[in-house]
């Protein structure tokens, strides 16, 4: 468009260049603010849906746990879902963070070049698998495996409160959902961590080598402290992804309108995003849709906060590509 405009003005290019530039600049600047408009739009429109919900239900909407629209008065609260999202994310991070750190250490400091590049590509491939496919895989392949692992955890480590299971049902647990989240977090966190560790200044590594370091002491005293900010940022980005993930969790988690505080291998848990998807199809009317939109508003606030924090941390520790 702008291109054609400029062609026509060719002869007067010198005279009108400023004007042409002004038009161009305005168009570009307007486009650049679309992201702000969308973010503000999400906040305003979903927020607007949350207002009447709050008027009717008060703070009970975020502090109680229930989903019953037939009772009088109706009892609805998403605390268990908000908490469930966090619990799943924590389970995911507990698995993904050590795995990502070890993977990037292996890629950057241990593996021969060829193997390192194969691994890097594999991790990228992992990031490219759509979550609906991971969910499908988790439902049919991971579930039976994970049930076995969990019953072992229960048999041998059942005395730890986290690994209690009274129902004997090991399917649809927060552990399985967290595990699938971990598979999505690993590529995100690994790519940031790998980048950060790879940027450890060679002069610091030289200094450490000349002081007789081992791999462990070099990591412990030089590389990890140097990349700390970036690593934390990478973990937060993974956390943001985990909090917002919907469909894979929907496939494997048995959604219960109750708060599962810490029984990670007990069937049943909560997640805001999953609640929205599972109720959306069978919503009983406009009010239930409104409730779901309000839940979406809180999910948005939660992930936005985590992501902003992550980006601040990453950008403060020096510009990272990607």
């Amino acid at each position, binding site marked *: 468009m702008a291109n054609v405009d*400029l062609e026509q003005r060719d002869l007067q*290019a*010198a005279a009108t260049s400023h004007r*042409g*530039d002004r*038009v*161009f600049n305005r168009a570009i*600047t307007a*486009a*650049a*603010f*679309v*992201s*702000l408009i*969308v*973010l503000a*739009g*999400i906040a305003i*429109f*979903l927020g607007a849906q949350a207002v009447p919900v709050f008027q009717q239900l008060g703070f009970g909407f975020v502090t109680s746990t229930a989903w019953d629209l037939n009772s009088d008065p109706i009892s609805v609260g998403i605390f268990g879902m908000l908490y469930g999202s966090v619990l799943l994310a924590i389970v995911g991070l507990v698995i993904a963070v*050590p*795995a990502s750190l*070890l993977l990037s*250490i292996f890629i950057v400091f241990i593996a021969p070049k060829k193997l390192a590049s194969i*691994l890097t590509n*594999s*991790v990228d*491939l*992992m990031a*490219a*698998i*759509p*979550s*609906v*496919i*991971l*969910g*499908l*895989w988790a439902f*049919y*392949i991971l579930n039976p*495996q994970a049930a076995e692992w969990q019953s*072992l955890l229960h048999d041998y480590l059942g005395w730890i409160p986290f690994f209690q299971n009274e129902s004997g049902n090991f399917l649809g647990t927060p552990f399985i959902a967290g595990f699938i989240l971990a598979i999505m977090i*690993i590529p995100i966190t690994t790519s940031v961590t790998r980048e950060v560790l790879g940027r450890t200044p060679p002069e610091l590594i030289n200094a450490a080598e000349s002081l007789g370091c081992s*791999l*462990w002491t070099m990591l412990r005293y030089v590389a990890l402290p140097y990349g700390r900010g970036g690593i934390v940022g990478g973990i937060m980005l993974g956390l943001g992804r985990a909090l*917002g993930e919907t*469909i894979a969790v929907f*496939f494997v988690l048995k959604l219960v309108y109750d708060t599962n505080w810490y029984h990670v291998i007990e069937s049943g848990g909560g997640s805001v995003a999953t609640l*929205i998807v599972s109720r*959306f199809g069978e919503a009983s009317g406009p009010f239930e849709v409104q409730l*779901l*939109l309000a839940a979406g508003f809180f*999910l*948005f606030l939660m*992930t936005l906060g985590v*992501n*902003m924090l*992550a980006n601040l941390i990453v950008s403060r520790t020096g510009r990272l590509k*990607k």
Partner: protein
Amino acid sequence: MTTTFDPASLPSLEQQTKTRPWRQRTTKFDVSVAIAVAVPMMIVIGMFLFSDIPGALVLVIYLPLQMFASGCAAVATKGKRGILDSVIIVNAVGASIFTFVIIFSVLWSLVSKGLKALSIPFLTQNSTYISPSTPLEYGGMAHAALGTLIVVAISALIAVPIGIATAIYITEVRGKAVPYVRFFVQSMSGVPSVVAGLFILTTLILTGAINTSAFAGGLAYAVLMLPTVARTAEEVLRLVPDDLRTGALALGSTRARTVLQVVLPAAKTGIVTAIILGIARVIGETAPLLMTSGKNDATVANPFSDPISTLPVSIFENVAQPYPDAVTRAWGAALILMVLVAILFTVARLLGRNKIK
């Protein structure tokens, strides 16, 4: 008196052979490593074959066993200070194997189960009159594949120009708001996909502005695609050397002209990569489409009028059905989706490689 270099020594120096003594391993080292690898492996295989300890538990026992064995080998060869190194290495190798196993398992199950569904009708027919219990010979996913392509094309038409313009604002126009724009773009990349769906639902569909349709789905996808395109395009434009810009400006070109006719063409392949990565980011997203484009058993070509089926939604619909054929359909749809993603990434990779050269 000083000593000077003796040229007579040159011939003998010519015959010196290169060595890399630091790579030579002592027998002690080799033997220790061999024992440290073989013994835990034998114990585990033994447990697997001759005891009734569950297989999964044997695997769990293996890791600490391997760490212990490697720790012993480290003490034997390098002394106490090697222990932690060996623990790190064992775990790092373990994490890598874990990654490979997951990827292999996902891809293998996709291929082995998905191929069962693939047939000419599966790739060419739609699902009209098909219920979950209908045998596999009837019906297909062509309507869903078409739906995915339409939705993705719409989202690309919207998000790509805006994303590239955002990148141009950051790298070329360099306005005052650059840090803020970057911040918003990064924050936007963290918007959960389900929230993007809800956003379009509440602003446009529930208000009656547009129908549940491919267009609505495309808008929701565009929300997710925009930040990816903008961030990748920004990286790519940064790689364009400043000389090109100053050169064009020095020839009397306007800034707009410089960007459109010099900078963007120079970054052409990179821009294509940005577009592809943006498409790959959204193509498998399911939740937003459930809310915006819905599902339809028939083939739909009009992007504005009716609900339309897409591959992710078709997978979603067929998972957990009690009929094996429905589940196989889900795997088949997943395989088609994965192939689409693989094609996109391969093209992006190939283009990316050219860019570096």
